[in-house]
Structure formats: structure tokens, C-alpha cells
């Protein structure tokens, strides 16, 4: 595996008129899968499109596979695969025809028929683009991004609007790309997608990267975790609280549903269960909630991702 970054963005600024879309963004993506996560309007697409050579930075530097995407575009383009957020296909073209065409622009393309089969597009090879479903159009765009056997693939919202099954198919392909040594940069506003796929996650808000790390690293940081259980309604929460470490909180959220927030470790779990034993409570549905990227995001930005 190479160690130099596949994408290196330094102090990128991009404005559209008076609106600053990207505001001093720094991002380093290494070999593997990097998810760029953020709400709509955070600057994800602008950042990715600058890496693809579509937009010229107002200031800052961008290097992709060591190349300047604008000045060294001719050298870079054969080495990357691009999936746009939408469109990109002649409205009169058939799915298979378009994919075959993109394959012809490359020196060593993938087997088109196998790729069509793989993405479940076998039934629509002769179907015109306009008559494909949204999910089929998305998968065709994905196929067009990978058919040229690139080193690095940019996927802008690859599963937006897909049903769960199609989303799985896309995820499986991303995993296979990764396993075969293709690096992937994907933008998403789905936490689950970032957690499932990414080696590295960059959280973007307001045109800047506000946190970056592996999903585990990001989830570990700072925030409290949660333990939940159900028992009979009206337990003495005050008594439970006394048994817990000082920085914990406990509450009965709805009758019979209890929540403890604090540093959840084996000791805390033992404390709660032994308190339950002393009070003759069977803690049904006891669960420990891992801190999710969703929570991390909420804490850092005060915003819901899917808003």
C-alpha cells in the first residue's frame, strides 16, 4: 500500500458570488475509503468537484494523486473515476450502450457485461436512460465511474434515494474496490454509510473540516454513552443515582423505561445490575448504546445531519 495521500487539500477557499461554499478547508485522504460527511450545503460537493478538476480554487492548493486537477487534468483524468450526483448520460442512450462507450475511452476497461450483471443492471441493458428508475440511474453512474479501472474513485452521494437492497449492492462494490486497492472518496449525509464503509471520516460543516479520523476514533472522543433498561414503573431513581459514580445521570423517561448516561464501562454495568438485584428488579431489554457518528456530529455542530 502506498503511504502518500491520494488527496491533499490545503486551505481551500471557493466562493460563488458572495457566498463562500468552502472556507479554508484542509483535508488529507489516504489510500482506502474516505467518507466526507456533512449536511446539505456544507461544501461537500464543491470540495469533491474541485478535486475532480471542475472548479478552480479561489485560493489554497489541491493535489489529487500528486497532480493539480486543473493544470494537469489530462494526466489525472484517466486515473480517476467520477460519479456525479445526478445525470451524465445522453437521454437517448441505452444503459449498456453508455457504459460500453465510457469503457471505450479507457485503455484497459473492466468487462462491461460482468459489471452490468454485478450491479443488477442486467435487465435494463437495452432500456433507454430516461426509462430507468432512479436507483438504476444511480447504479449506472457508479458503473461509469469504475469501468475504466481507476486508482481513485469519487462518488458524490452514491446511495441517495436508493432502496436498502440497492444500497447494499453499492456498499458491496465499494468494499470490493477497496479490497482490490482502489481508493474511494465518497460524500454522504448518511452516518450509517460512513460507519459501514469508511476507513477515515472527515466531517464538514460550514465549508470546513471540523473533525477527521476513523469512525471508532470519532465515536470515542468526548461524549457520554448511554445505558438503557426497562423495569417496573416508578423505581426510585434517586437511590439508583446514589449508587452510581458522581458524573452519571439517571432518569425514568417513560413509565418503566430507564436511562443512565455516563461513562459506560463494565463497572457501571455491574453497578446498575447489582442495584437492580438489590431492589428485586429484572432489568429487561438492558442495552448499551454505542456513541454514533450521528451524536458526534450533533454535538459538534448542533445540527441534525439529515435536516
Amino acid at each position, binding site marked *: 500500500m502506498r503511504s502518500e495521500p491520494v488527496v491533499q487539500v490545503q486551505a481551500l477557499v471557493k466562493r460563488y458570488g458572495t457566498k463562500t461554499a468552502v472556507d479554508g478547508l484542509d483535508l488529507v485522504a489516504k489510500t482506502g475509503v474516505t467518507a466526507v460527511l456533512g449536511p446539505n450545503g456544507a461544501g461537500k460537493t464543491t470540495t469533491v468537484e474541485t478535486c475532480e478538476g471542475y472548479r478552480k480554487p479561489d485560493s489554497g492548493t489541491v493535489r489529487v494523486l500528486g497532480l493539480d486537477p486543473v493544470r494537469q487534468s489530462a494526466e489525472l483524468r484517466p486515473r480517476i473515476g467520477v460519479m*456525479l450526483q445526478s445525470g451524465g448520460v*445522453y437521454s437517448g442512450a441505452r444503459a449498456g450502450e453508455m457504459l460500453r462507450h465510457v469503457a471505450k475511452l479507457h*485503455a*484497459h476497461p473492466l468487462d462491461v457485461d460482468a459489471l452490468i450483471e454485478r450491479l443488477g443492471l442486467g435487465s435494463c441493458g437495452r432500456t433507454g436512460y430516461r426509462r430507468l428508475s432512479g436507483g438504476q440511474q444511480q447504479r449506472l453512474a457508479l458503473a461509469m465511474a469504475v469501468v475504466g479501472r481507476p486508482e481513485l474513485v469519487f462518488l458524490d452521494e452514491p446511495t441517495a434515494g436508493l432502496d436498502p437492497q440497492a444500497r447494499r449492492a453499492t456498499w458491496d462494490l465499494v468494499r470490493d474496490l477497496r479490497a*482490490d486497492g482502489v481508493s474511494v472518496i465518497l460524500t454522504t449525509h448518511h452516518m450509517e454509510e460512513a460507519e459501514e464503509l469508511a476507513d477515515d471520516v472527515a466531517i464538514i460543516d460550514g465549508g470546513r473540516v471540523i473533525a477527521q479520523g476513523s469512525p471508532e476514533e470519532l465515536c470515542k472522543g468526548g461524549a457520554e454513552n448511554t445505558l438503557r433498561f426497562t423495569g417496573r414503573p416508578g423505581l426510585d431513581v434517586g437511590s439508583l443515582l446514589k449508587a452510581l459514580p458522581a458524573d452519571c445521570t439517571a432518569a425514568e423517561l417513560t413509565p418503566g423505561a430507564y436511562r443512565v448516561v455516563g461513562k459506560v464501562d463494565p463497572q457501571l454495568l455491574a453497578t446498575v445490575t447489582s442495584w437492580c438485584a438489590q431492589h428485586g428488579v429484572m432489568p429487561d431489554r438492558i442495552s448499551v448504546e454505542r456513541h454514533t457518528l450521528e451524536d458526534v456530529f450533533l454535538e459538534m455542530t448542533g445540527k441534525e445531519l439529515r435536516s
Partner: protein
Amino acid sequence: MTTATGTYAPKPGAAPLPRMIAAQAALETKMLLRNGEQLLLTVVIPTLLLVLFGSVDIVDTGKGRAVDFLAPGILALAVMSTAFTGQAIATGFERRYGVLKRLASSPLPRWGLMTAKTASVLVTEILQVILLTVIAFALGWSPHGNPAAVLLLLILGTAAFSGLGLLMAGTLKAEATLAAANLVFLLLLVGGGVIVPLDKFGPAAQHVLALLPISALSGGLRDVLQHGAGTPWGDLGILAVWAVVGLAAAGKFFRWE
């Protein structure tokens, strides 16, 4: 669904340039010939006009057989329908649907895409000229003149109309391009000496209309093919100016997204 490991292992590379351009030109031509509205403009309308006005005496086309007057005008119309109207509409929608954007990140360079578009226009024009020539001969056409002058007129006419078509496609919204390109087609069909002789208009209007690219092309073709004139430098000059201005403006103002 599993795939053998290594299937996706990177092996990047652009195809050789001539192969990319040929593939692109083939696809563009296929898209054009598959599109019903485009065929209506490029094939059905010129053919119908030629057959209708060539066999029924509706418009007073002056002395001589109607087809000798009409065939050069219809050839000019065919060039305009493909290089201007068809290309403007197709490119406008390619821009709107992100096709131009997607191709811009493919290994095909932009000038390669434009070369392919030109090749596709030329292939379509060759098919049109063959079809219309056969029909004109069947109607008793007897052309004169130097084929080289005809070729030069067709090429400069194509360049002039391509520049204007791409300028429109690259600056207006797709729907606006669709409407405007069809409107211009209709206006120039009537006022550009295609089926109606320019001297049917008043003397002042005539002089202005004669400066239009369609009038220069139809007039130049008619001078050569109907009257056996030498190289029509005046008309070639007008077309050259339109070509330079149109292509330069398209190069400057064309927006890819």
C-alpha cells in the same frame, strides 16, 4: 454476488485519441439518428420541401425548372438543420443533463469532444446530401459548376452554423435553446432564400437578408449549381465572417454546466 479478487485492481489509462474521438463521433451520430425530432428537422422537412415544391408549382421560382432553383436551397437548409438547429438542441440538452460535465472528467479532452461533434455533423450532412441529391435527380435536377466551390461553401456554411449553434447551446437554457433554434430555423427557412427567392422581399430587406449565413449559403450554392458561376467569393466571405465570429464567441462564452 461475489467477484474474484483483483477484478477491480487499478489499471488506468486513456484509450488512443483517434479511438476515443471515433467512439464519441459514432455515439453522437447514433443519438442524432435515433432522435425523432432531430430526424424531422434534418431529413423529413428538407425532403418534403424538395419533393413538394419541386413537383408542384407553388412558389414562383423564376425561369427554368423549379428543382434547379430548389435543390441548392434545400442543401443549404440541410446544412443549417444539422450544424445549427440539431447541434444546438442536442448540445443544449447534453449540457442540461450533465453529459458534457461527465465527459469533461473522462480521458477524452474537450477539443476531442468538439472534434467528434464536428465529425458527427459532417457524417450526418453527407447522408443528407446523398439522400437529397438522389431525390433531386429523380425530379430532373441538372446541376452545373465546380464541385470544389460547392464543397467549400458547404464546409464554411457548416463552420458558420456550428459556431452559432454552439454559442446558443452553451449560453442559453436547454428549453430556450430548443425554442429559439426552431424559431430561427423557421425564420431563415422563409427569409434566407431557401425556397422563396430573396427578390420577393423589398429592396431594402433584400440587402439585409443577403447578409444572413443561410442566404450566403443558399445564394452561393445556387450561383454555382444553377448558373454555373465560378467561385462565389462574396458569399464565401460572408460565411467566413459568420464562422469566425460565431466560433470565437462560442469559444469565449460556452459554459459546460
